[in-house]
């Protein structure tokens, strides 16, 4: 089940005839590791060693402020939110067996799963859940999930296993906010020095920026899981080192194979690629409040310049899907409109806007694999339409310096979200990351109504309307949804494609097993 997509993948890539062919032939000629040993049926026991991209001395075990990938992987191993996104990006119960709105959706009640316990054996109580959300939204030290809980008025104990979230306005999608990985439930007396949660793995030890080790949580509520006795997460700051570690057998799985290297890695008989379609997106951001982007014709012209298929092919080595300036592809209401490259119309629009010889500076940075390449390909395409785009490359720290959110023409990256939660993060004036400074009165009205609209049909219509507006007037140029490609040894089983945009089955290593 895992090997099939990977195998067809490399075949397709080989037929595509990329420049990497020589390298594949060379490496294949050298002979990879000994014959592949397949994972077989699920089995218990063993150690799973995983190489994870990023991290450093500022690594944290704090469930509510994970920043780098290794932080997220640790968070998802140790802690669990009330509900969570599964591999298909649908909401599933986790610590709560149910999360239901009251009529009017001005309050939601979560029922804690019966018999669920923390790593130290204590049962999860409503008090723990209340304390968790007080910790996240602490006004003196708000955690990374806090911004989406602006509508949370109060949270109270409502029964032996019930917790009630009282909201300042109706919110029919409040359960989606609870599902973020940065909302893991912790005991009321939580101390980050003693990281206790309900996750499948218990904390054992770690050295920041290097490695962390976990052992099975025997009282875990899902039957049979986790399969492995021990989990080791190893930080890698460098792509080559991570891939070498996999090829030399020092780790069992790695996240984020650079898309240009998938052929080489996939040509090893003992290695399986794990390719996931995701709703992640790498937009070019135009600030709609400054010249020349304040003219919608300029924004539309710049969007028409993008050859999206070509960008997906060149930037992502074909591993992804073209996008048309809208995010949230897995939202049931996703519009999926059409916008083909049209240099003729782009030129006309620019002339109409009085800017026939437009010259711009695009700020780019390796904030995510593919961003710099995307800027380069796009700049080349723009030249054909008479738009001169100079690239200003900065390092990631500079990119996220105090100028972040101020760049006029830059880039960004986001993971999978549905439309309303994403708009609340990036397209509303009060959103914490409104990169495009988008302040469209009609749009805001539609989103506000959609956020509190109880009728599902009416809400769907509003979400579609919001997308139409953003498609016509928004400040994002969204050219593609990159696939996520991870790799693991053939003897690792249980890892499946996952839509969240997080690597290796959403970093849920409880699902993985290793054959002896």
């Amino acid at each position, binding site marked *: 089940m895992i090997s099939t997509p990977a195998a067809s993948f490399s075949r397709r890539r080989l037929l595509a005839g990329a420049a990497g062919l020589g390298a594949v032939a060379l*490496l294949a000629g*050298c*002979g*990879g*590791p000994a014959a592949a040993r397949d994972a077989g049926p699920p089995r218990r026991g063993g150690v799973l*060693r995983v190489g994870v991209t990023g991290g*450093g*001395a*500022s690594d944290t075990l704090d469930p509510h*402020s994970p*920043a*780098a990938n290794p932080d997220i992987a640790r968070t998802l191993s140790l802690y669990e939110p009330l509900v969570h996104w599964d591999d298909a990006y649908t909401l599933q119960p986790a610590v709560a067996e149910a999360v239901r709105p009251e009529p009017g959706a001005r309050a939601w009640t979560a029922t804690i799963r019966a018999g669920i316990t923390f790593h130290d054996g204590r049962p999860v109580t409503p008090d723990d859940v209340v304390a968790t959300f007080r910790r996240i939204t602490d006004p003196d*030290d*708000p955690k*990374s999930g806090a*911004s989406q809980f602006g509508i949370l008025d109060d949270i109270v104990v409502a029964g032996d296993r019930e917790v009630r979230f009282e909201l300042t306005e109706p919110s029919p999608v409040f359960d989606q906010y609870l599902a973020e990985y940065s909302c893991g439930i912790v005991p009321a007396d939580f101390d980050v020095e003693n990281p206790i949660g309900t996750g499948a793995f218990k904390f*054992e*030890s*770690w*050295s*920041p*920026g*290097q*490695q*962390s*080790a976990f052992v099975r949580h025997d009282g875990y509520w899902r039957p049979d899981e986790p399969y492995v006795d021990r989990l*080791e997460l*190893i930080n*890698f*700051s*460098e792509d*080559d*080192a991570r891939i*070498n*570690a996999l*090829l*030399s*057998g*020092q*780790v069992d799985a790695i996240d984020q194979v650079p898309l240009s290297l998938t052929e080489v890695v996939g040509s090893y008989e003992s290695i399986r690629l794990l390719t996931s379609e995701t709703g992640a997106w790498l937009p070019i951001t135009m600030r709609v409040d400054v010249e020349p982007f304040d003219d919608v014709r300029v924004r539309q012209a710049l969007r028409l310049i993008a050859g999206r298929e070509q960008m997906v092919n060149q930037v992502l080595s074909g591993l992804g899907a073209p996008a048309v300036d809208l995010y949230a592809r897995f939202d049931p209401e996703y519009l999926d409109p059409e916008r083909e490259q049209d240099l003729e119309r782009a030129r006309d629009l620019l002339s109409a806007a009085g800017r026939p010889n437009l010259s711009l500076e695009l700020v780019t940075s390796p904030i995510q694999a593919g961003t710099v390449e995307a800027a380069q390909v796009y700049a080349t395409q723009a030249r054909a339409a008479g738009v001169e785009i100079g690239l200003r490359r*900065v*390092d*990631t*720290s*500079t990119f*996220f*310096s*105090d100028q*972040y959110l101020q760049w006029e023409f830059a880039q960004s990256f986001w993971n999978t979200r549905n439309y309303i939660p994403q708009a609340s993060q990036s397209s509303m004036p009060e959103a*914490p*990351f409104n990169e495009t400074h988008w302040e469209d009165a009609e749009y805001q009205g539609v989103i506000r109504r959609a956020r509190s609209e109880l009728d599902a049909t009416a809400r769907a219509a509003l979400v579609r309307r919001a997308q139409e507006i953003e498609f016509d007037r928004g400040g994002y140029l969204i050219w593609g949804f990159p696939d996520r490609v991870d790799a693991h040894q053939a003897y690792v089983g249980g890892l499946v494609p996952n839509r969240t945009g997080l690597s290796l089955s959403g970093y849920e290593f409880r699902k993985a097993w290793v054959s002896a």
Partner: protein
Amino acid sequence: MTKMILKRLLVSLLVLLVVSLLIFAATLLLPGDPARAILGQQATPERVAALTEQLGLDRPAWERYLSWLGGVVTGDLGFSAATQGPVSELLGGRIAASALLLVLTALISTPVALALGAWAATRRGTRTDSMLSGSSLVLAALPEFVIGVLLVVLFATSVLQILPSVTIARPGEPVWARPEQLVLPVLTLALVVIPYVVRMTRATLSEALDAGFVEMARLKGLPERTVLVRHAVPHTIGPVAQVLALQLAWLAGGVVVVEFLFRYPGIGQALIDAVANRDVQVVQAITLIIAAFYVLVNLAADVAGILADPRIRHASGGGA
């Protein structure tokens, strides 16, 4: 002679002081600010403000320099912004790990390089000599990154799979607990250092072997071995020590690249991480450590040169 050595020592200290100023100025020029770099995309104005104050970034630069220098002199390297703990705590194990790489490399490459150089010098013009000279020239031309990648392909991933390609230490476990992980990083560094020293040894020894006093010794009928060891070799100690020192000093910097490639948990990796995090105190500490090592090794080479040079040794009247 003692005066000369003391003078060198004083100069070294002055150099370090200037370097400390340069380091401090350079870290001020790093774009972006530490608070935002640490918080990344999660930076909200309140969190940035709190962290900025916590890190003391609101104080004037000269004040920060003086208090930093004062700390360095008393052994206090300050607080790391990224870990929120003392820098010395963060670096302790890493300095030991890097020092291990350097010491192993020096221990292996020095005798090998000197022996190979002497061997080539005494066989000038033969095929072994030209083979040795040729291969050392090729190796000297390759950057350490390329050598490292080639070794990984050869011994760890593609051709043979007999050595680990990266260093993975369990939490709390020192790097030397799994010695096989040290082989490729040390080998890479050694292959970078050896060629220069081989070439320098061969050149200076050849020059000495051609000199008049060696011919005189030969004419006096001394055995070739005595001529080599008693007359020719002492003349090469000064220049070879200089090259050796330069190479070892270079190692302190080259280790950054090699640690990056092999995921070796030393100061090089810490430096890259600290630069990315704008963890200024850590960047300053590591750069100063590397600079101090550089100065120290050069000082040692100078002293070795002074001690080895019979003219200086005898002109100053003492020393024997």
